[in-house]
């Protein structure tokens, strides 16, 4: 993975000094609450319902075991011994003290981590495919470009006070595992006919109150021009994005109001001005960044491991886990393993400090000391030998991270919701748990196959409910918590936004509602159809009828 040089290290050290002084001046009353707010937000610090919340960046989802141990240590020393992995490849601590945050940032800086721009109206953490570099379907490894964008966006002087937050997602594979179509900017690394790497650039996607799928602004951008081009997009947004209404301030609204063609025309005119200039990224720099992501020293294993095959045949529980949680690796004899952070009874995405330490040890033992965080709030070991899967499975079971439910109904994506977040209209974690408890029969879950269920506690949509095959949105009605259900959303290259099925439900009704939706699917599905396929074929009606016939 990328390692800081003297510049990177100096910048984050200077950032810690800067924020320590800002915090000191705030606590001394020299800086007002309003003046301090954007400063703390751009260092990841929210003031939440019960305590501050600190959001730490995990740039493009990559973590070393040493970094994970530091996170575990911070959880223990400054928080309540756990952290929450988010849908944007970040880690949140829910109980730090404001006074401690500069010390936490200093500890993070020692392992080349930070909380820079994880919040506030600026460019946020760059996210990507959690299988980057190991997926067989990959065209280009997106990680060097993610690091390029991380550096470009970090402390970008022109774009620190944008109209609203700004999220960039990068994918290097035709299967979009990074939800790039719902980002303010989506960057697809592609190759042209000559095999040259470049980018397809999308703009104006997003969830929230006005969910929109991104538009292609340029089909092929030469790779060296990426920063010039992004500067031009950002400058348009910074100058002309709405600042009068928080709910209309994202770039998607600007693109919608101008029309993608007019927007493109302005961006390209500004790009022409700087095209070919000092902002062009030389190939040597791309090669330097790429060198950090060279393949680890894989052993030369001849094809499928025989003991692994035998274990699958012998052991049904192991075989189920392999089916759901193990993804093929491009190198023969290796596999990609997803650690499920979706055990029933545990808030989705949560991990204790002890679990983090244990996972760090396992990463050292089984996967070259590295791991990934996915936007589905799970952890991933990308480079495990097939021959070691059985023993790894045993260790993960003991840790509670071997729930064989990846991609299934109980692999719920869920924001912290009203239990923690001051923005939330409703709780989300107890809804997730009640649904997980209802669907506790693994055989049945397997039979249902892939169903994405996403829960957001408010329309800020941190749980990405619009792109869940089943989406649940917490709403407030006269001070009470209700849940609006949509179906038909999907992520990836066929991304679509779900449609609301009708009036919302009380929390206690939710497991029944989900069960009825699933029942319709089971009765009406054809052959190997997934839930989303059946919804697409039948439309909303039969699902609506069933849910409301019985519920009201």
């Amino acid at each position, binding site marked *: 993975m990328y390692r800081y040089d003297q510049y990177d290290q100096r910048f984050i050290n200077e950032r810690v000094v800067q924020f320590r002084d800002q915090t000191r001046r705030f606590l001394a009353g020299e800086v007002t609450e309003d003046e301090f707010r954007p400063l703390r937000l751009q260092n990841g610090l929210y003031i939440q319902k019960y305590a501050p919340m600190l959001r730490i960046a995990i740039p493009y989802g990559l973590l070393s075991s040493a970094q994970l141990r530091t996170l575990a240590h911070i959880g223990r020393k400054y928080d309540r011994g756990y952290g929450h992995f988010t849908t944007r490849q970040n880690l949140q601590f829910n109980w730090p003290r404001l006074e401690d945050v500069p010390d936490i940032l200093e500890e993070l800086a020692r392992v080349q981590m930070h909380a820079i721009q994880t919040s506030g109206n600026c460019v946020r953490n760059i996210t990507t495919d959690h299988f980057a570099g190991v997926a067989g379907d990959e065209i280009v490894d997106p990680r060097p470009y993610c690091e390029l964008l991380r550096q470009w966006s970090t402390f970008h*002087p022109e774009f620190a006070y944008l109209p609203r937050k700004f999220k960039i997602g990068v994918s290097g594979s035709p299967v979009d595992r990074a939800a790039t179509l719902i980002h303010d900017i989506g960057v697809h690394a592609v190759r042209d006919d000559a095999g040259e790497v470049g980018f397809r650039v999308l703009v104006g996607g997003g969830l929230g109150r006005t969910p929109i799928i991104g538009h292609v602004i340029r089909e092929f951008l030469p790779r060296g021009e990426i920063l010039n081009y992004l500067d031009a997009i950002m400058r348009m947004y910074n100058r002309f994005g709405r600042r009068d209404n928080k709910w209309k301030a994202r770039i998607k609204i600007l693109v919608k109001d101008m029309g993608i063609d007019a927007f493109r025309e302005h961006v390209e005119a500004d790009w022409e001005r700087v095209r070919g200039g000092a902002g062009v990224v030389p190939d040597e720099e791309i090669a330097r960044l790429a060198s*950090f992501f060279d393949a680890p020293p894989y052993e030369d294993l001849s094809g499928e491991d025989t003991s692994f095959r035998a274990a699958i045949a012998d052991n049904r529980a192991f075989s189920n886990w392999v089916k759901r949680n193990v993804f093929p690796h491009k190198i023969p004899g290796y596999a990609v393993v997803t650690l499920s952070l979706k055990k029933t009874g545990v808030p989705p995405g949560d991990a204790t400090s002890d679990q983090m330490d244990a996972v760090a040890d396992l990463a050292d033992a089984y996967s070259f000391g590295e791991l990934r965080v996915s936007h589905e709030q799970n952890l991933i070991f990308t480079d495990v030998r097939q021959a070691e899967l059985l023993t790894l499975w045993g260790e993960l079971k003991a840790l509670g991270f071997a729930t064989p439910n990846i991609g299934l109904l109980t692999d719920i994506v869920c924001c912290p919701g009203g239990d923690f977040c001051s923005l939330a209209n409703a709780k989300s974690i107890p809804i997730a748990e009640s649904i997980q408890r209802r669907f506790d029969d693994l055989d049945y879950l397997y039979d249902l196959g892939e169903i994405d269920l996403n829960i957001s506690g408010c329309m800020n949509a941190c749980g990405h409910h619009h792109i869940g095959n089943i989406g649940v949105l917490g709403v407030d009605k006269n001070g009470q918590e209700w849940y609006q259900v949509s179906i038909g959303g999907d992520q990836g290259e066929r991304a679509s936004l779900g449609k609301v099925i009708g009036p919302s439900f009380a929390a206690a009704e939710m497991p029944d509602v989900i069960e009825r939706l699933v029942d319709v699917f089971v009765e009406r599905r054809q052959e190997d159809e997934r839930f989303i396929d059946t919804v697409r074929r039948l439309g909303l009606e039969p699902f609506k009828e069933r849910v409301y016939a019985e519920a009201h």
Partner: protein
Amino acid sequence: MPKLIKDRVVVDDAWTLLRDAASLDDLPAAAPVIVPLALWQQQRDALAARGEVGVWLAPTDDPDALARDVHRLPLIAVDFPQFTDGRGYSTARLLREKYHFLGELRAVGDVLRDQLYYLQACGFNAFAIRSDRDANQALTGLSDFSDNYQATATQPLPLFRRRGIGEGDASSPGQPGRR
């Protein structure tokens, strides 16, 4: 006389910012003045003849409006009604990089210590710190960082074009390796 940070030094500010001047009658007899863009556009020649006139731009003003004036204006000010309104950063960059304005580029309005570093990187070289704050204390904000990843007004080469040049050890951590 009010204080101003100019070229990293606190100095007396001789200029008067006229926020509401709508006609030449609203101008004081002498003293250098900074007028609104609208007035400048109406009275370009009369104002230029007066000497020592600058123009200030609101966040919604297009710097393109000054494209043919940049060579004769000694000062352009950019207003920040709230420090969280970032439009002025782009205005400044365009004035410096697109229109090649070489005079004093001054940030006015809600200008505070903690924004100075980025403002300077975008091309501002003068800062009228909000009147209830001390310009001398704010001065340190210009030195929060020692360098930038991006090109700035004072360093036209982004870091990726300078890395490994001149500083001998810059390439050593770049050795390939995953851990």
